């Protein structure tokens, strides 16, 4: 190392024990060696940082009031230098975060990495999944156009159907009989204050628990084979993480340039010609609710609340009832079939919702 850099390093090391920190961060042993399948967690962290950076830049111009939210967003798009790109990056970044959460959860599920002793990591991960979805839901309202307004109306109505807490939650979020200034203020505060704080805290806990339990490693291979292939986090896994982050950054940038954010009309209590629709990652649920089976008060409760809540509870309970130490997905046919069925259902229902939208128009 350059003598000057060495001096700086030694100075910092003397004060904060940099060597131990470096050993802990970079010399984490990875059983079975580095893998592309392990990049999702790091990529999620990267997307969150980018969302925070672009979010702060947007807040320099955004005004969270019902009178000015729409105009300030249009100002960002049309007047601020590169504002359209920053806003579009933030918009597509939220979608990327949802995709990566699904990919990360799928990888953990298929690798059987939720099993003992990693049950708490899985539970914290599920809470983080909820936070990411809440980020998308609260951020969607902020531009205050027809799309934002009506997606929120539909979302809050769905929430209203939850027994016991639904009415309170809906009233708390709306802050009045119809979405207005109070709703926007609450969504804004939750989006920029509550959720980032919760995410940072839980992500820190998630990482701490992960480092304590250690990576699960591949689900195949004898202990001798895995030991022979064991590698440190640096440099191979770090390199893979960096490449994956670059790929995600470039993909989001390409989407932001190709399909930038264009607002609809300013929000108003009359939907007019606009057919309300949630963000694409909620489309499967939206389509499910169109089925006759889920019509009526009870049907809507069943489709919008009971089934998703039961599914989340099932996921939370998974490490506690699936106690077999077998992690190889090809020797866990129920797990493989369940994952395939859920993913196929989400895909089919999402495509159906898109076809249905064209059919309605």
């Amino acid at each position: 190392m350059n003598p000057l850099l060495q001096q700086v390093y030694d100075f910092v090391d003397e004060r904060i024990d940099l060597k131990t920190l470096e050993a802990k961060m970079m010399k984490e042993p990875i059983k079975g060696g580095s893998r592309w399948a392990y990049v999702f967690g790091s990529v999620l962290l990267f997307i969150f940082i980018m969302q925070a950076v672009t979010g702060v830049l947007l807040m320099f111009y955004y005004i969270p009031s019902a009178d000015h939210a729409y105009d300030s967003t249009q100002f960002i798009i049309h007047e601020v230098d590169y504002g359209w790109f920053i806003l579009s990056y933030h918009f597509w970044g939220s979608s990327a975060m949802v995709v990566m959460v699904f990919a990360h959860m799928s990888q953990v599920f298929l690798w059987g990495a939720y099993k003992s002793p990693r049950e708490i990591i899985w539970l914290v991960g599920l809470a983080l999944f909820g936070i990411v979805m809440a980020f998308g839901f609260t951020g969607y309202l902020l531009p205050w156009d027809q799309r934002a307004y009506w997606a929120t109306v539909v979302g809050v109505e769905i929430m209203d159907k939850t027994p016991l807490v639904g009415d309170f939650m809906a009233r708390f979020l709306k802050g009045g009989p119809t979405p207005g200034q109070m709703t926007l203020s609450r969504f804004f505060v939750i989006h920029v204050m509550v959720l980032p704080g919760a995410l940072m805290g839980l992500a820190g806990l998630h990482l701490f628990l992960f480092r304590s339990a250690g990576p699960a490693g591949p689900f195949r291979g004898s202990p001798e084979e895995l030991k022979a292939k064991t590698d440190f986090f640096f440099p191979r896994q770090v390199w893979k993480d960096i490449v994956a982050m670059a790929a995600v950054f470039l993909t989001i940038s390409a989407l932001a340039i190709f399909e930038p954010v264009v607002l609809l009309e300013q929000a108003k209590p009359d939907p007019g010609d606009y057919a309300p629709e949630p963000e694409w990652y909620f489309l499967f649920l939206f389509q499910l609710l169109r089925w006759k089976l889920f019509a009526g008060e009870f049907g809507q409760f069943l489709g919008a609340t009971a089934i998703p809540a039961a599914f989340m509870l099932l996921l939370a309970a998974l490490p506690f009832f699936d106690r077999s130490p077998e992690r190889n997905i090809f020797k866990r046919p129920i797990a493989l079939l369940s994952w395939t069925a859920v993913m196929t259902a989400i895909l089919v229902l999402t495509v159906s919702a898109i076809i249905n939208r064209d059919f309605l128009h």
Partner: protein
Amino acid sequence: MAHPATTISSVKLAWALSWTAFWTGFPFKAIVVVLLLAAHMPPWEGAGLIVLFVLSAPIDVWALGLAARTFFLERMGVAVNGPVGVNLWWQGTALGAVTLGVAYYAVGAVAVLCKQAAAATLDAVSQFLPIPVAERITIELMMWATPASIVAIVFLLIWLKLFGWRIKWVAVALGQTSSGDLQARVREWDSWRVPADSILMLLSFTAVAVLLTVTFWVLLPVTTTHRHPDYPPPPTVVVKKQVKPEELLKQTDAALVKANAVLAVLEQEQVKGTQKAKAKPASQGK
């Protein structure tokens, strides 16, 4: 003894190599795509598509070569020498072009046929059991997308089988079995890939990253190209040249001086012309 490359399934081998090569080349192609988009050149048509294709070829050759060498050395203990990337790329591309061409028509035909069959079946069922629109859309989608996906997967497997067969051929022709253990082989491969001067490599990477970043921001439009109808682009204002009286007076003086000079020349010419005209009749009379 059988060559290690022949012991693995062709489909698995081709999948492992093409999957790895795809993700290895992806970030580089993504850089090209982003720069093209920023420069208003859609990478799916015209010049943008040509640029993407031309730049993708060497990226794919490099990625396939890297993936193949790593896979054979680390998993099979076979060191593959020679132009393995080029060899695999042209064979994979040729096979892919044929398979994709046939698959395009086969999948399309199956989808059309199944869509018609699904519509007819559901119409017939609706005669005695009404099917609501949302349910009908999903059932119809499942009825045509399932067979179409199966046909697409079959063609993918055919391509993988053929490509795997060619990969094995290349491995047998160009490969030599390595005698070292796994760690020794990995170290050997690392020593080929990692340059001796890591600082130089880091500096080069940084320089390229900075150059690409600057290029991106230079190419990217400052204001949106997708304007909202209520926010039309500001009218182009023709900037009027500012009037500076002193300069204007100087220019006028200069123009007057020039005009006087021209006038003087013209007057002289006129005088000469009159004199010639007067002199002519006299000379004619001689």
